[in-house]
């Protein structure tokens, strides 16, 4: 069962974390947007539009490079595991090992003609993971998870009129997953490591941005699901050939869900603009994960995930004071994971995020944005879990984003 859970784990990682809700999904596609709760699809007025709404590129008439990264610092505690409601083990706290993740968002845009603009983005939105103390009570479920994914997105946008723009992008997606756990074999713990890389997979995104009035604009965008095929190795340290505990090759596949943004932005005054977005994530398409062992199919694991479609609500605003912009935002991220599937691999919960940020135009060409996001997870009780590892999770994350833009 522990290998089974390992695979449950990979599922959680590949599925949960890469994408948009669950895991440590965070709004680090650009610090300007991040500071506003990620409510950006209706304005999409900087090169991070490549993520939020490619149509936004249509209204950006300058060539620009926009480069950024975000420092993500989660803190997680687990209380348990508890066998029943009266179990005093609820007092036993294990803290996740503190790590800092630095996903990147790098974009470049170029106006080919007045109306036709192109762009390219490299987004690394899910460089994240979880790590627990190596000998902790849940070591047979997980000790370490590390996930990275890269989106390479060529995008093209066309400004149909001064009010309307459309855009499409192609996403070339690759990912790597590493996970580790312990397994008990003949009184000895062996460390199981699974290391997989996905082949390049393809998806598209498309969007429309419509400036209804000079003060009100609406944006809609859609990102298709992406099917990742990953392969790699499973290693055992130490191996035990006599009981068939030997290294093997593994393969797995996973479909990342489709997601869509619908947003409305309103210029309250010449200096103040606010926006509200609804983001939908079609997680219900993710029913199960299968991990296949090439030489020993008896180790294959099929683990159900039973995710639900979910949503994120984003609200944000920006106040301009000459060269300085002040930003604030709020988001609510509804977890797609049912209580029975919450586990130490990716403890998930509904989250509330509060952001603030600053943007400063240093010169005509150079600007910088900083943002701070405090993400608070609801205290999550994992009850009747399929891993039989019930308990309570407390989690929060601090994120600091920095982006620099240079226009030509």
């Amino acid at each position, binding site marked *: 069962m522990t290998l089974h859970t390992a695979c449950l784990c990979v599922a959680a990682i590949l599925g949960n974390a890469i994408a948009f809700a669950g895991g440590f999904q965070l709004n680090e596609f650009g610090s300007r947007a991040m500071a506003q709760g990620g409510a950006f699809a209706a304005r999409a007025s900087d090169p991070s539009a490549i993520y939020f709404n490619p149509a936004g590129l249509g209204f950006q008439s300058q060539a620009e490079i926009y480069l950024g990264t975000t420092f993500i610092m989660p803190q997680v505690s687990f209380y348990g595991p*508890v066998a029943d409601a009266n179990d005093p083990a609820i007092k036993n706290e294990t803290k996740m090992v503190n790590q800092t993740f630095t996903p990147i968002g790098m974009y470049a845009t170029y106006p080919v003609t007045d109306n036709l603009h192109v762009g390219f983005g490299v987004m690394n939105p899910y460089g994240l993971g979880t790590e627990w103390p190596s000998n902790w009570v849940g070591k047979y479920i997980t000790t370490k998870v590390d996930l990275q994914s890269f989106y390479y997105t060529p995008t093209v946008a066309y400004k149909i009129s001064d009010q309307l723009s459309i855009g499409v992008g192609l996403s070339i997606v690759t990912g790597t997953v590493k996970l580790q756990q312990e397994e008990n074999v003949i009184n000895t713990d062996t460390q199981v490591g699974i290391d997989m890389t996905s082949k390049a997979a393809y998806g598209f995104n498309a969007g429309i941005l419509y400036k209804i009035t000079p003060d009100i604009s609406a944006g809609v965008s859609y990102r298709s699901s992406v099917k990742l095929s990953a392969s790699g190795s499973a290693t055992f340290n130490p191996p035990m050939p006599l009981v068939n505990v030997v290294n093997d090759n593994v393969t797995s596949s996973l479909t990342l869900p489709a997601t869509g943004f619908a947003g409305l932005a309103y210029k309250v005054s010449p200096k103040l603009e606010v926006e509200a977005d609804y983001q939908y994530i079609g997680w219900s398409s993710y029913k199960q994960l299968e991990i296949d062992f090439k030489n020993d199919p008896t180790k294959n694991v099929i683990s159900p995930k039973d995710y639900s479609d979910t949503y994120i609500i984003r609200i944000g605003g920006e106040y301009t004071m000459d060269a300085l912009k002040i930003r604030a935002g709020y988001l609510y991220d509804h977890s797609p994971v049912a209580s029975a599937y919450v586990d130490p691999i990716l403890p998930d919960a509904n989250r509330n995020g509060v952001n603030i940020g600053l943007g400063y135009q240093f010169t005509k060409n150079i600007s910088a944005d900083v943002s701070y996001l405090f993400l608070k997870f609801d205290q999550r009780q994992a009850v009747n879990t399929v891993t039989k590892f019930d308990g309570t999770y407390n989690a929060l994350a601090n994120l600091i984003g920095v982006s620099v833009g240079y226009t030509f």
Partner: protein
Amino acid sequence: MKANTFIFAALVVIGALLSNGCTDSAPSGPSASLGSVTVTKYVAIGNSLTAGYQSNALYHSSQIYSYPKLISDQLKAAGANLGDFQQPLYSDPGNPDPLTGKAAQYQLINLVGPIIGPTGAAAGTPENLALPRPYDNLGVPGAIIYDFLDTTNFGSKAGAPRNNAFFGLVLRSSAFGSSILAQASALHPDLVTFWLGNNDVLGYATSGGTSKNIVGSVGPTPASVFQGMYGQAVGTLRTALPNAKILLGNIPDVKAIPFFTTIGPKVAAGVKGAMAASPLVVGLFYEKSGEVVASSYTNFTHPQSDPLITLEGGPYAALLGQQTGQWYRDLAASQGIPFAALYGSYKAAGIDTTKPFGFHPQNPFPDALVLDSAEQATTEQAISAFNSTIAATAAANNAAVVDFNAFFNNVKLYGVTVNGETFKTDYVSGGLFSLDGVHPTSKGYGILANQYIKTMNASFGMHVPYVNINNLPGLPTVQVLGKSAGDKNLSAIPYKAWKNFNTLWQSGL
């Protein structure tokens, strides 16, 4: 402008600092405690399961993980002021097999096979003989319900008909008390676990339905006799300890124990293969109770009425179809009599070892290795009757029942997962049962201890923390091995190595 920026930056920093204090508090819940119960002395009463027997022996490394020792540790973690939990420790590798004088413990000799059995190592010696009071762990391997009140000299039970040296080891001298009850009472426990009755039926079952009970007939202890003895045992205990918390363990079904469920599928596969290869093979011929020449055979297509083959039948599963009298040779050797003398009587009754073993009524699979459907029914009825008695006795004496019957039936169907490790009732690969197929591994005993703790918490309002199974030694688990390893040809534990296992159950007069 700069002032505004400064104020803003200051707000960011303050916000960040404040929010880091903005963590949730720890979830509410009970702390480890004994509730309103006082525990100053805990005593365990039972048989080999209580003593910490594993892999056919009692030895230090198994006894330190006996469920009573584990319970005692957890009681201390809940605040009980208990001293060291004293047990009749036997140094590794444990007690001797009387037949060989060497250590009786079964060990994994070779993973390829796997090959399991006694290694021929020198036996250990008792370590805690000088304790000036009764042991806290009064589990005596081989004890039946009759033994609880019995005042027969302990040392004498080492001879016929019991041939059980453990009474002498655990109870030592009547100076500590002339019965198990007396020694338990002398310690004035306020918490007692009591798990007796298994051997009243297991001896019959593990012998393939051939061994005799306390009243001298072949079968489990008769239900009415058990009812009387069990009621009297617990009633007397309750009278001696009017205020103690008492937990009674009930009896699991035999079909949940790998001793009975491991060899059958191997034999079934061998039979089906032979039937496919030759129309002359119609099924497995096996002896029913009292038979010599078999009158029935099975092709293993009726799970409700098919016989169970015991773990002792392992070596003989490989001999199906051969012209062999190996069983009779082994039987003679284990009884210490010449083969010719033993075989003569069987031959006179119709046995012909030139016939293919198991496939001909004159060379059938022997009664002692088979629990046929009638024997299974007898066993099940006995267990059901014993458990009714245990439940009624608990109610009458204000004791709690730990329902091991329900627990093991559940584990047989679904396994049990603890902290990410899954355990099943499969032999060796399941992780729960040790190499004799009856007694648990240390992890298994931890899981049993947690059943006691769960019951005492629920019944007595205590909050004793559970044992952490991760920290207990165990045997390989099925998940990493995969099914491929579990299907490997099974152990051939030599028949003579089972003799001291079988003598544990001898209570017949």
